[in-house]
């Protein structure tokens, strides 16, 4: 059977100021008719470069060194710009990562779909509209009124559905999916995956599905190819790759995938309550003369953290979990009461230096949480200066987060994402806190780096006995480490359960939905 898409010995360089950098080494892949090939790799492995090479949309400094890219019997590298326009969309579709930037904000949804159909399938305006309505129905957008809406008037999940409808509607031979669910929250992402599986059954289109998430890829793909630093290290049927990873890199990837049944924390928390919060309401913005105040981001949330406990806080984006972190660290105005060490706090001004020292926060993006104009030693010296400590402790702090002492002289941009996050952790622990709030600290990191960071946090907890409030959207991860988990939805807490009870029957329906949406590895 001839493959619909074949990549033979493809090698790609990027020309940079230090000379050519090889991003893809001798890649050979084939996708048969109706087959879905999953392409997995960490950030920087070259998976998106491969997608752009197939779309013939490489940056100017890219040099194709060797190999061929063929779509059926067409040699993609030899196409003229005019021929490319006829191939793109018509025979080779693409769905991007971020739906909010891939639709034109000034055109209606209807215009954007019908234009693609008129261009690629040569339909008349009227036929195109009726087909567009039909296609939108297929992606569960049944209200034809959506045709007249603008992209900002529909949600992120709906936008991705519109893009998928457009891609499928042109009936291409192959569709490239570049992390189509990464920018969406868990439940919306899960629905998109269900939709993808159904459309695939209906149309039999072949697809290349690119993702960093091995667990997710094994659920949608027939075969999985693993890319590491531009090299293809393994190709295997999806069902086998989890059970019997052959290459060491694949094994590392498989091991790093969090599985709820593999607990990493075995001790019990203390009985003494470190921090108790009750009726916390965070309100952004106030009402004006002619408008009401927006609803509060959190609605009277109460929680308590015990000594040495890891409390998980889970929810979709917009559920108010980060607002809780901001309230507890005095970054957002709130109403309610926080009791910490017999000290009562009713508003930001009540937070004294002792509270600020004892409650530390680590942010999601390590790039943004370290000042780019400060060297590492200056970043680490601030908590020491503020809370008492000696500058000679800096090497010890670096060593505590498993970084060499020589890093003290570096700038943040000279460090990788995982290393930066370690510095942020060192900065938080420099204050010798009693409670550390981790706000999605592993979300922007690769799974293998995520596993290392979690291991580090647990080791620090062993050493210091610090309690954690761990905010995340990854239910599988938090079930590995937390003692208790709180589930938030639209500013309300729907569940607060010990982790053992998550398999029980009395969980909230929303929690069950969240669990069903978290991809658990096959095998």
């Amino acid at each position: 059977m001839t493959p619909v898409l074949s990549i033979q010995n493809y090698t790609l360089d990027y020309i940079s100021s230090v000379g050519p950098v090889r991003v893809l080494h001798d890649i050979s892949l084939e996708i048969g008719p109706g087959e879905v090939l999953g392409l997995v790799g960490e950030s920087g492995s070259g998976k998106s470069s491969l997608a752009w090479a197939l779309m013939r949309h490489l940056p100017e400094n890219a040099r194709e060194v060797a190999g061929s890219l063929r779509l059926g019997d067409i040699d993609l590298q030899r196409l003229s710009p005019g021929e490319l326009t006829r191939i793109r969309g018509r025979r080779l579709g693409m769905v991007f990562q971020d739906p909010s930037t891939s639709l034109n904000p000034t055109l209606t949804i209807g215009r954007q779909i019908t234009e693609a159909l008129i261009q690629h399938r040569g339909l008349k305006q009227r036929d195109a509209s009726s087909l567009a309505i039909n296609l939108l129905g297929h992606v569960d957008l049944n209200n034809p009124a959506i045709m007249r809406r603008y992209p900002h008037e529909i949600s992120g999940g709906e936008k991705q559905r519109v893009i998928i409808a457009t891609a499928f509607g042109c009936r291409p031979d192959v569709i490239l999916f570049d992390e189509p669910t990464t920018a969406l929250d868990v439940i919306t992402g899960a629905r998109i995956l269900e939709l993808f599986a159904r459309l695939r059954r209906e149309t039999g289109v072949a697809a290349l599905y690119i993702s960093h998430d091995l667990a997710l890829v094994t659920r949608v793909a027939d075969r999985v190819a693993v890319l590491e630093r531009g090299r293809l290290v393994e190709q295997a049927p999806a069902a086998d790759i989890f059970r019997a990873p052959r290459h060491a890199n694949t094994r590392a990837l498989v091991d790093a995938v969090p599985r709820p049944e593999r607990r990493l924390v075995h001790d019990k928390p203390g009985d003494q309550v470190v921090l108790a919060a009750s009726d916390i309401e965070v309100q952004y913005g106030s009402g004006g003369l002619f408008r009401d105040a927006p609803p509060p981001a959190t609605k009277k949330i109460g929680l308590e953290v015990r000594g040495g406990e890891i409390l998980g806080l889970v929810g979709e984006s917009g559920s108010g979990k980060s607002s809780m972190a901001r309230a507890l660290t005095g970054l957002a105005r709130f109403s309610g009461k926080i009791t910490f060490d017999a000290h009562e706090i009713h508003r930001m001004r009540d937070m004294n230096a002792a509270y600020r020292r004892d409650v530390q926060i680590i942010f999601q993006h390590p790039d943004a949480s370290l000042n780019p104009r400060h060297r590492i030693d200056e970043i680490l010296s601030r908590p020491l200066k503020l809370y008492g400590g000696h500058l000679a402790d800096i090497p010890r702090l670096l060593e505590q987060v498993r970084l060499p002492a020589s890093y003290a002289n570096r700038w943040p941009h000279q460090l990788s994402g995982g290393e930066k996050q370690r510095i942020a952790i060192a900065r938080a622990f420099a204050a010798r806190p009693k409670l550390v709030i981790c706000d999605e600290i592993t979300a922007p990191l690769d799974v293998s780096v995520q596993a290392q960071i979690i291991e580090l946090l647990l080791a620090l907890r062993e050493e210091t006995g610090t309690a954690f409030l761990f905010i995340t959207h990854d239910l599988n991860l938090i079930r590995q480490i937390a003692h208790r988990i709180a589930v938030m939805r639209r500013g309300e807490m729907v569940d607060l359960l010990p982790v053992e009870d998550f398999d029980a029957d009395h969980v909230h329906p929303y929690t069950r939905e969240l669990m069903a949406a978290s991809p658990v590895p096959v095998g």
Partner: protein
Amino acid sequence: MTELFIRLMRKPQGFVGIVLLALIAAACLFGPALAPYAPEKIDFLGRFRAPGWQNWLGADQFGRDILSRLMVGARSTVPLAFIATFVGSAAGATIGVGSAYLGGRTDEAIMRTIDAVMAIPGLLMALLLVSTLGNGAGNAVIAIAVAFAPGMARVTRSAALNVRNQDYVKAAIARGEGAPWIIFREMLPNVMAPIVIESTIRVSFAVMLFATLSFLGVGAQPPASEWGLMVADARQHMHQAPWGLIAPSAAIALTAIAFNLVGDGLRDALNPKDER
């Protein structure tokens, strides 16, 4: 820093700007030593002498050598413009970053005041201040600095608002840092790029504004060889001896262009996306 300089020199506008600035700086430093004549040496036989081998750029109504006057006058024009811009930018940047950090009503109050001040044209503002403070080069510097601060404050604030939302600033607030540390050490270094670019461009405005004030008779006073004053003096004899007008005007324009070019070059060189 050296890397930035090399990047700046690679851009054509940066290279030309730097060369021109180096010439101007040389005139400021060594002007009096290099000048062929004393700037106030009067030569009655050489009144309105056209440019030639005796006076390269000609002579004015008192027979004073225009080239010598320009070279000596550089010292009383360019450094003063530079100081005025520096003081104005520093004040404006501090106000802008502070306003962005404080936020809310305070920010609103500061920025609306700035808007009100900006509604008065810079020259009018400077004239107003000089006429209250009294004539003289020192007061002109203060007037220009005050006239420049609101614009700088606005530019800085818009850059600082982005920085204000960065997690490192939030981290500093969460660990209980004081406002001066956050404003000067956390935020200000991260908005330096737009400030530096804006100030280099503003130096050229300051040179012109300073010359204008002298031209109007409220800046430097005769017989100083300040460039704006030279233009004012030569104006009456424009038809007899146009070189008296052209040479200092060209010097002012050249300085303004030099600073503008360096500002343009810096904007490109400071842009990290411009690596290739």
